[in-house]
């Protein structure tokens, strides 16, 4: 019982606290990616809290966040298309985040969800946990791809050589998706 709360505190400190700094400084693209990462970390913290407090109904919070977090990121990707396109990815943090987001989700979500599944045992709760994990990974793939697509299409009126820039992030995200599906 104690270990889950310790893991939640650790994840809050390591995973969530840097995203506050990332979302509060830097260009818009980095802020949106930090918000995306914060949604993932917050959802995992909520899952760990539900197990730590031994209240299975708290899992609903994580479910709502897993649905609404990618929706919020898609809102940013739709309404901030100009700002996302204005600044090319010169920021190293934003570039690293854009590259590492999908593998990070594919590694971290099973790392948290699978021990929770073992702890809860088979049943409806386990199916719910697995659904939340699938929603998290899928939503992360969708939102990261939307951000990359906005970025790629924003470059098209800027320069003539837009095709390699347009295919670069697309190929990267599809590679991450196949890795997530395999793992």
């Amino acid at each position, binding site marked *: *019982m*104690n270990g889950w*709360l*310790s893991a*939640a*505190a650790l994840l*809050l*400190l390591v995973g*969530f*606290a840097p*995203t*506050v700094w990332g*979302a*509060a400084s830097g260009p*818009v693209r980095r*802020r*949106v990616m*930090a*918000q995306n990462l*914060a*949604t993932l970390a*917050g959802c995992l*913290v*909520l899952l760990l*809290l539900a197990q730590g*407090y031994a*209240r299975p*109904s*708290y899992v*609903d*919070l994580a479910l*709502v*966040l897993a649905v*609404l*977090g990618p*929706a*919020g990121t898609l*809102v*940013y990707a739709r*309404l*901030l*298309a*100009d*700002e996302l*396109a*204005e600044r090319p990815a010169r920021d190293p943090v934003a570039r690293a985040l854009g590259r590492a987001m999908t593998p990070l989700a594919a590694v971290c979500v099973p790392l948290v969800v699978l021990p929770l599944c073992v702890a809860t045992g088979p049943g409806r709760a386990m199916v719910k946990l697995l659904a939340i994990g699938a929603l998290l990974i899928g939503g992360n793939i969708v939102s990261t791809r939307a951000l990359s697509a906005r970025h790629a299409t*924003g470059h098209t*009126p800027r320069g003539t050589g837009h095709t390699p820039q347009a295919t670069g992030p697309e190929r990267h995200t599809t590679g991450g998706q196949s890795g997530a599906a395999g793992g």
Partner: protein
Amino acid sequence: MRPVADVLIVLALALVAASSTAAVLARDPVRQSTVLALLGLSLALLFAVLQAPDVALSQLAVGSALTPLMLLLSVRKVRRKGKEGGSHRNAGNRTGSTDQEGRR
């Protein structure tokens, strides 16, 4: 269990304090919107740590999707009005978005 729960409460309070300070210090509304989304998320985490899941549920629904949507929609409307009125602030370098804004 007690000390870990206290550590969690202190951590969540510190996160709320940090993100709300950042939200106050951000001047540009567009950049403030991401900080506001993070503030809503950390407030929801604080409510969940304080054993108030119903408040956390509504805070999640409002803070993570609705607040940025409202803020960004109003920013876009203000900018469009400023451009139609011949304002000099946002003139230029937004030619690619005129068709999108004209559709709305």
